[in-house]
C-alpha cells in the first residue's frame, strides 16, 4: 500500500505499521518502503514516517541516510516550525555517520532568529552528546551561547542540556545566574524543575552557609524582606552596591544573589506541578536559613492530597526533613494521620513522619492515634506501628513506661505477628532500664511456649540470658524447655539458645552445667555451620580446658559485659546527604548520573563573577528606558514641588529663591531641602542648589540611576529619611496628592527623629555632585522608596519641625506679621507667620508660627495663651507654655488655628505671668487652603463640576516683571497655598488646593496671553473664598 499514490492508502498503511510498533512487534523489514515516503506531502503520513524512522534508523543506518537530505532541506525552510521539526527528527536519528551534519545543524540553529528553533537546538544537544561524546567541547560552546539566551522558552531546555553534557562546568552559569533567577517564574514547569535543581547545586558552591551563624540572621532577613517590595529594578548594580555597603562587619551576610534565588523561587511553591513544588522545597531545605525553611511545609502538606505516587515521594522527603527540622511540620501533625484506605506503603511512611514529629507535648495524641492503628486489619502496618511506638518510647523518656505497659498488653494479642513485633520492641526498650522490669521478663519467659515467630523467640531468649540475674529461677527452666525443642528451632533461635546456655553456665553453673553441655553437643552436629562454629567457640570459652585457660578466665567478661542499649532510629536519618527530591534520595543509593550536592564553601567565592556588563543585561535596558520615561514626568513634578517648598519657608529669602529657581529648572530635590529651617541648613541649601544648577544634567542622571538601584533597602532606616526623601522626591508626584489629602494619617506615622544627623547626611549627598553610585553610598544603603513610601517620608521631614518646635530657627522675616508691638507689649515682641505646614494635631488647622522676642531688660515668664474669645466655629490649638524668655532672646512656638474657612480673625489673649495682651490673627485667604496635587485631566474634570456660580473670572494685565514662568508661579503660590497642576500648554498655569476645614476644592487657572493680557479663573464651592482669592492673586500679580 505504501507504494500507491493515494495518500489515504498510505496513511492507512502507516497507521498499521505504527500500531505494530506500539505493540512491540518488529516492523524493521518495511524500512525501505517507509523511508521512500519521507518526502510525502501529507502531513500525517510524514509524521508517522518520522515516528518510524526514529524508531528503526539505528538498525538500518545506510538506508536511513537516504532521508537526511529531506531534513537538510527542512532546516532551511522559512517557517520556524518546519525548521524546528526537521532539526528535531534529524537529531533523533541515531546514526553516527551524520554527527558532523548534526553538529552543523545545531550550531546554526543555536543562532536562529526564532526562540523555538533555539529551544529545539538545546534539545538536540544531549542527543548528539549521547551519540558521540567526542563532540563535548564543541557542544559546550553551543551551550554557553544558548545559556546567554534571554527567552524563557530556551532557558529550561538549555539547562537540561547543560546538566546532561557538562554539569561540572559551573563556571558557565556565573554570568547567567541572575538572569536565570529572574526568568525562572516564566519558564514552563519542566524547565523550572531542572533549573531549580541546578541552581541548588550552584548555590552550594558559590555562597556561604546561612546556618553557620544563626543569631545575626534576623537582621538580614529583615532587610531582604524590604527588598522584596521592588518588582523588577533589581539590577546588577544594586547587588554590587549592597554587597559593597555591607562589608564584613558581621560574620555572616547572605549574598544578595543567594537572597535573589530564594526570593524568586518562593512563589513557585504555589505551582500546580508537584515536581516544581518539590524542587523549591529541596532548594529551601538545602539553601535557606533555618528561620525561612518553614514556608515549604505548607506546600508539601498540600501535595499529600495528590495521587498516591506523589504522596509516596513527598512523604519520603518529608520524613527526611522532619528529622532535621521537626518544628517545621509540627503544626501539620494531623495531616499525617492515617486513613484505613491508604495503601500500606503510604501508611508506613506517614507513621515514620508521625514518629519523627512526636515530642513531649504532642505525644499523648500521637500515642492515642497509634492505639487505633494497632487494631488495624493491615498486619504489616500494625507491626510498623509497634516499631513506631518503640521509637517514641526511646526518644521521649516520659512516656517510656506507658508505652512499655501498652506493649506488654499487646503480648496477649491473638495475632502472632503483633506479639512477635511487640517482643522485639520490648526487648529493645528493656535494654535501657532492665532493673525495674523483672516482671516483664518473667511474663515474656512464659510466652516462649506460645510464640512461634523465630525473631520473637530469639529476642526473649536473649533477654533472659542477658538479665538472668533478675530472673534466676526461671532462666534455667526456660533453657531446659529450649534444649528439649532445640532441633526443631530456627537457626536464629538456636544461636540464642547457645547464647543463653553459655550465660547461664557462667552465672549459675550448678544448675545448668549439664544442660549447657547437652545443648552444645546438639549444636555441634547441627546442619548449619554457623551454629556449629558458635557451639565450638562457646565450648572453648566457657568450659575450662588446658590450653584455653587464659581466655576462659575472661569468659564472664566477654559474655556478660554490659551492652549499650540499641538506638532506635529512623531509616531516614542520614538520607539528607542526598539532594532531597532526587531519585538517589528516594532509593537511598546513588543513581547513575547523580550529582553530589557539594558542601558549603568555607570562603565565599568572588561574587563579582556574576556581574554582567550592562548592555548584556535585559533589565538594565529596562532601566534605561525607565529613565527616558521619567524625564518628562520629572519635569512635571518640579512645578508641584515648587509650591510645597515656598509654603515651607519664606520665598523672599535669598538662599531660598536660589534654590527655588533651581527647582524650577529641573531638580525636584530642593523642595525637601527647604523643609529644613535651620539657618546653616539654608546656607548649605543655597550652595547645594547652586551646584545643582550647574551640574544639573549630569547630576540628574546619576540620581536617576540611584533611584531604581537600591530600592527599598534603606526605607527601613528612619534616620535616613532626609536623604531618601530627597532622592525619591522625583517619584512622588502621583502619590503626593494622597499625601496632602490625608495629612493627619501620615503625620501620626512620623517618628520623632533627630534632626542633626540627617542634615549632615544630606549635605554630603548634595556636595558630592558626580559621585559614583556604589562607593559613596552612606552607611545605610541608598534610599529607594516606592512612591507611597516617598509620601510618608516627605511627611516625615515636614513634621520634624512641627514636632520639635524648640529647634526651629526663625523663618526669615519678610512674611511676618506683627502680633504685638514692642511698645504695646512692654518689651515683648510677637510676630507670626503662616508656616504652610500641615498642623500636627488637626488637619483642619492652619499652623501658625509665633515668634517671641524679648526686647526688655527683664525675663518674661510663663508665656501662654489665655482664654480665647472666638467667633463660632473657630478653634485654637495652643502652643505649649514658654516658661521663660531671657532678655534679648527669642523663641518660636507653633499653634494651630481652625479658621473654619473664613477670614475672620481669631482673637485670643497672650498671657505672661504679669500681663495679658489681647491679640488677633487674621489670615489672608490664601492661607486657608492646602495644596492638592492632581493631574491635568483630573483638574479639568473637577473644573467641569465647578462651573457657573462657582466660577469667578477676572481679566488682568501682567506687568512686564512678571511674565516669566517662574515668577508667575512664585507669586501665585506666595499668595495662596496652592499646588501647581501640570499643564500641557506653556502659557497656562493651573493650581489646585483644598480649603482646610471643609476640604472643598479651590482651582485656579491663569491663562496668560501674549502681551501681558491674562485671565484669572477661580473655581470653588466657597464663593466668598473664591472672590477674595481672585482679588488677592490679582493684587499680587499686578504689583
Amino acid at each position, binding site marked *: 500500500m505504501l507504494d500507491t499514490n493515494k495518500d489515504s492508502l498510505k496513511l492507512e498503511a502507516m497507521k498499521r505499521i505504527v500500531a505494530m510498533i506500539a505493540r512491540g512487534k518488529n516492523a524493521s523489514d518495511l524500512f525501505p518502503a517507509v523511508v521512500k515516503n519521507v518526502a510525502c506531502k501529507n502531513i500525517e503520513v510524514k509524521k508517522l514516517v518520522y515516528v518510524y524512522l526514529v524508531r528503526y534508523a539505528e538498525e538500518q543506518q545506510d538506508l536511513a541516510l537516504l532521508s537526511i537530505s529531506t531534513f537538510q532541506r527542512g532546516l532551511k525552510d522559512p517557517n520556524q516550525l518546519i525548521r524546528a521539526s526537521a532539526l528535531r527528527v534529524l537529531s533523533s536519528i541515531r546514526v553516527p555517520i551524520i554527527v558532523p551534519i548534526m553538529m552543523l545543524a545545531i550550531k546554526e540553529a543555536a543562532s536562529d532568529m526564532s526562540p523555538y528553533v533555539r529551544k529545539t537546538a538545546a534539545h538536540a544537544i*544531549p542527543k548528539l552528546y549521547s551519540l558521540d561524546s567526542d563532540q563535548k567541547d564543541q557542544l559546550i560552546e553551543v551551550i554557553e551561547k544558548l545559556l546567554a539566551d534571554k527567552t524563557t522558552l530556551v532557558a529550561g531546555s538549555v539547562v537540561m542540556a547543560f546538566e546532561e553534557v557538562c554539569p561540572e562546568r559551573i563556571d558557565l552559569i556565573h554570568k547567567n545566574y541572575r538572569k536565570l533567577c529572574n526568568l525562572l517564574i516564566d519558564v514552563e514547569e519542566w524547565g523550572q524543575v531542572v533549573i531549580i535543581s541546578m541552581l541548588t547545586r550552584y548555590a552550594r558552591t558559590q555562597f556561604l552557609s546561612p546556618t553557620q551563624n544563626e543569631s545575626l540572621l534576623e537582621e538580614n532577613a529583615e532587610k531582604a524582606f524590604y527588598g522584596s517590595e521592588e518588582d523588577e529594578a533589581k539590577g546588577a548594580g544594586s547587588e554590587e552596591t549592597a554587597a559593597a555597603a555591607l562589608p564584613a562587619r558581621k560574620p555572616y551576610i547572605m549574598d544578595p544573589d543567594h537572597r535573589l534565588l530564594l526570593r524568586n523561587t518562593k512563589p513557585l511553591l504555589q505551582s500546580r506541578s508537584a515536581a516544581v513544588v518539590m524542587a523549591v522545597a529541596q532548594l529551601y531545605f538545602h539553601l535557606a536559613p533555618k528561620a525561612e525553611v518553614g514556608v515549604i511545609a505548607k506546600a508539601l502538606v*498540600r501535595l499529600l492530597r495528590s495521587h498516591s505516587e506523589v504522596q509516596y515521594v513527598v512523604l519520603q522527603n518529608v520524613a527526611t526533613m522532619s528529622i532535621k527540622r521537626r518544628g517545621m511540620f509540627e503544626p501539620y501533625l494531623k495531616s499525617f494521620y492515617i486513613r484505613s484506605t491508604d495503601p500500606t506503603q503510604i501508611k508506613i511512611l506517614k507513621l515514620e513522619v508521625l514518629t519523627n514529629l512526636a515530642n513531649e507535648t504532642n505525644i499523648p495524641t500521637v500515642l492515642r492515634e497509634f492505639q487505633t492503628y494497632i487494631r488495624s486489619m493491615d498486619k504489616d502496618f500494625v507491626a510498623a506501628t509497634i516499631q513506631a511506638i518503640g521509637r517514641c518510647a526511646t526518644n521521649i523518656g516520659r512516656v517510656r513506661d506507658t508505652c512499655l505497659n501498652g506493649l506488654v498488653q499487646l503480648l496477649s494479642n491473638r495475632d502472632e505477628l503483633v506479639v512477635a513485633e511487640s517482643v522485639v520492641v520490648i526487648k529493645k526498650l528493656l535494654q535501657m532500664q532492665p532493673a525495674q522490669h523483672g516482671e516483664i521478663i518473667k511474663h515474656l519467659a512464659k510466652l516462649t511456649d506460645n510464640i512461634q515467630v523465630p525473631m520473637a523467640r530469639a529476642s526473649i531468649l536473649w533477654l533472659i540470658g542477658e538479665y538472668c540475674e533478675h530472673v534466676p529461677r526461671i532462666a534455667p527452666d526456660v533453657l531446659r524447655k529450649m534444649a528439649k525443642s532445640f532441633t526443631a528451632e530456627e537457626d536464629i533461635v538456636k544461636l540464642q539458645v547457645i547464647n543463653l546456655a553459655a550465660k547461664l553456665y557462667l552465672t549459675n553453673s550448678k544448675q545448668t552445667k549439664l544442660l549447657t553441655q547437652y545443648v552444645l553437643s546438639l549444636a555441634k552436629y547441627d546442619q548449619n555451620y554457623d551454629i556449629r562454629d558458635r557451639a565450638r567457640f562457646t565450648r572453648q570459652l566457657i568450659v575450662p580446658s588446658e590450653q584455653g585457660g587464659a581466655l576462659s578466665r575472661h569468659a564472664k567478661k566477654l559474655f556478660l559485659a554490659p551492652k549499650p542499649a540499641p538506638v532506635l532510629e529512623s531509616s531516614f536519618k542520614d538520607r539528607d546527604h542526598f539532594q532531597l527530591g532526587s531519585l538517589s534520595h528516594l532509593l537511598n543509593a546513588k543513581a547513575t548520573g547523580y550529582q553530589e550536592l557539594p558542601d558549603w564553601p568555607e570562603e565565599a567565592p568572588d561574587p563579582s563573577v556574576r556581574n554582567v556588563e550592562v548592555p548584556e543585561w535585559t533589565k538594565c535596558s529596562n532601566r534605561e528606558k525607565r529613565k527616558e520615561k521619567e524625564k518628562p514626568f520629572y519635569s512635571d513634578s518640579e512645578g508641584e514641588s515648587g509650591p510645597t517648598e515656598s509654603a515651607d519657608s519664606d520665598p523672599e529669602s535669598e538662599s531660598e529663591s536660589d534654590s527655588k529657581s533651581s527647582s524650577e529648572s529641573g531638580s525636584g530635590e530642593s523642595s525637601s531641602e527647604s523643609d529644613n529651617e535651620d539657618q546653616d541648613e539654608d546656607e548649605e541649601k543655597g550652595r547645594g542648589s547652586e551646584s545643582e544648577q550647574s551640574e544639573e544634567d549630569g547630576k540628574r542622571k546619576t540620581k536617576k540611576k540611584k533611584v531604581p538601584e537600591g530600592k527599598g533597602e534603606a526605607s527601613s532606616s528612619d534616620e535616613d529619611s532626609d536623604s531618601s526623601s530627597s532622592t525619591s522626591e522625583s517619584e512622588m508626584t502621583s502619590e503626593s496628592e494622597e499625601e496632602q489629602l490625608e495629612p493627619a494619617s501620615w503625620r501620626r506615622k512620623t517618628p520623632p527623629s533627630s534632626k542633626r544627623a540627617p542634615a549632615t547626611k544630606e549635605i554630603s549627598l548634595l556636595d558630592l555632585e558626580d559621585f559614583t553610585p556604589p562607593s559613596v553610598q552612606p552607611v545605610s544603603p541608598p534610599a529607594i522608596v516606592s512612591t507611597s513610601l516617598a509620601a510618608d517620608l516627605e511627611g516625615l521631614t515636614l513634621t520634624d519641625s512641627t514636632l520639635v518646635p524648640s529647634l526651629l530657627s526663625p523663618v526669615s522675616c519678610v512674611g511676618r506679621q506683627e502680633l504685638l508691638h514692642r511698645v504695646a507689649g512692654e518689651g515683648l515682641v510677637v510676630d507670626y507667620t503662616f508656616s504652610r505646614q500641615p498642623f500636627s494635631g488637626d488637619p483642619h488647622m492652619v499652623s501658625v508660627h509665633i515668634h517671641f522676642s524679648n526686647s526688655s531688660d527683664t525675663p518674661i515668664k510663663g508665656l501662654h495663651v489665655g482664654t480665647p474669645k472666638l467667633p463660632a466655629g473657630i478653634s485654637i490649638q495652643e502652643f505649649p507654655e514658654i516658661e521663660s524668655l531671657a532678655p534679648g532672646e527669642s523663641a518660636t512656638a507653633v499653634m494651630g488655628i481652625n479658621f473654619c474657612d473664613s477670614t475672620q480673625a481669631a482673637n485670643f489673649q497672650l498671657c505672661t505671668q504679669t500681663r495679658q495682651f489681647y491679640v488677633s490673627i487674621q489670615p489672608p485667604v490664601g492661607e486657608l487652603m492646602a495644596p492638592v496635587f492632581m493631574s491635568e485631566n483630573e483638574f479639568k474634570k473637577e473644573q467641569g463640576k465647578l462651573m457657573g456660580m462657582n466660577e469667578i473670572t477676572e481679566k488682568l494685565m501682567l506687568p512686564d516683571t512678571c511674565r516669566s514662568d517662574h515668577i508667575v508661579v512664585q507669586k501665585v503660590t506666595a499668595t495662596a497655598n496652592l499646588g501647581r497642576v501640570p499643564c500641557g500648554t506653556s502659557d497656562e498655569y493651573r493650581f489646585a488646593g483644598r480649603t482646610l476645614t471643609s476640604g472643598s476644592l479651590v482651582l485656579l487657572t491663569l491663562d496668560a496671553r501674549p502681551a501681558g493680557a491674562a485671565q484669572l479663573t477661580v473655581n470653588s464651592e466657597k464663593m466668598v473664598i473664591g472672590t477674595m482669592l481672585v482679588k488677592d492673586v490679582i493684587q499680587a500679580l499686578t504689583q
Partner: protein
Amino acid sequence: MIHSLFLINSSGDIFLEKHWKSVVSRSVCDYFFEAQERATEAENVPPVIPTPHHYLLSVYRHKIFFVAVIQTEVPPLFVIEFLHRVVDTFQDYFGVCSEPVIKDNVVVVYEVLEEMLDNGFPLATESNILKELIKPPTILRTVVNTITGSTNVGDQLPTGQLSVVPWRRTGVKYTNNEAYFDVIEEIDAIIDKSGSTITAEIQGVIDACVKLTGMPDLTLSFMNPRLLDDVSFHPCVRFKRWESERILSFIPPDGNFRLLSYHVSAQNLVAIPVYVKHNISFRDSSSLGRFEITVGPKQTMGKTIEGVTVTSQMPKGVLNMSLTPSQGTHTFDPVTKMLSWDVGKINPQKPPNLKGTMSLQAGASKPDENPTINLQFKIQQLAISGLKVNRLDMYGEKYKPFKGIKYMTKAGKFQVRT
C-alpha cells in the same frame, strides 16, 4: 530523561510501548512484574523500582500501570508528574482512559506521546497546544476522515507553542461565549468512635470551563479571600496580582481546566455536615454479630445531602450479612468483604438506617477491629468553607459573556472509625 514508556494492564500484559531514545527491551518490565506480585494489591506497588541498569517509575490509574523507564538521576516527581499529565491528556482526548480506548486510538496516542516528549524531555504538555497539533478524534471527524481522506493531524502549525500565553490556543471562536466556574470543596475528615472529629480539613478546587472568543482577560474576585490558606494556581494566573490584591487575574486556556486549588486554613473549624451513628458488635461466643448504621444531617445550612454512599471493609471473619435498609440499596460482596450501601438523599425527618446481622465464621475468634466506615456525599449549592465568588469581569474583548458559578461540597476522604 525518560527513556521509554510501557503501558501494562492489570493482568500483566504490555499493550503499548514507546521509546524516546534507543529501544529498551521489554524484559525490563519483569522486575516490575516481580514487584507487582510481591505487593499483592495494585496500589501497593512501589512507585520507584530500581533494577540493575534502569529505574522503573510507575503510576497506577484507571487500572493501567504507566511505567516509565529511566536510566539516570531524575527527580522522581518529575517523572511521576509527567505520567499523570499523560493520563490526564488521554482522558482529555478520549473522554475515558482505558485499555480498549487506548488500543483503538493507538495511532493518536502515539502521535501525542511523540509530541509530549523530545528525547525524554517534556516538550508540549499543555492540552491546548496538543489539540492544535493533533486533533482529538470525534465520531464526526472519524466519519468525515474516512470519506474525505483528511487527517487528524492539524494542518496549521502550532502557533500556540510560540506565544506568550502557551496555554491558550489562538483564534478561538464561539457563537455562545460562556464561562463557568465550579467551586468544589471536599471535606477530608476522620471521625472518632464517639463521633468527635479527630481531624478535618477542607480542600477546594475551582474548575473552569471557559469558552470565550479571542483573548479574554478575566479577573475573579472573592468576597472572603482570606479563607484561602494555601493555594496553587494554573500557570495562567498572575501571581503578583494575587499577592497584592487577592484577585485572580488570568487569560484562561480554552476549554476545561483547573484554575485553582486551595486549602482552607486549619484554624477555621470545619462544619461536618453529617453524622453517623453506628452499633457494630461481634460476640465471641456466637457466630452472629449485630450491625446498625444511621446516617443523618448535621450543620448543612439548610441544604439537602445527596448522593450518600456508605462503604465499609468488613473483617475477614464476616461470612455474610443480612441487612435491611430503610432506604436505598445495599450490597455485600462475600469475597472482598466489602459492604456498600447506596443511600441517596437524606431526609432530615427520617434519617436512613441500615440494620441487621452479620454471620461470622464459626469457631473463629472475634476480629480485633471494627470496620471503618467510608462516607461519600454531595451537597449542591454550598461551599462548606463559606467561600464566595464576588464577581467575574472580562477585559480585552467586546462581547458580553455568559457567566455561571456553581458551588458544591463533597466528601473527600471521609472516614468514621468504629
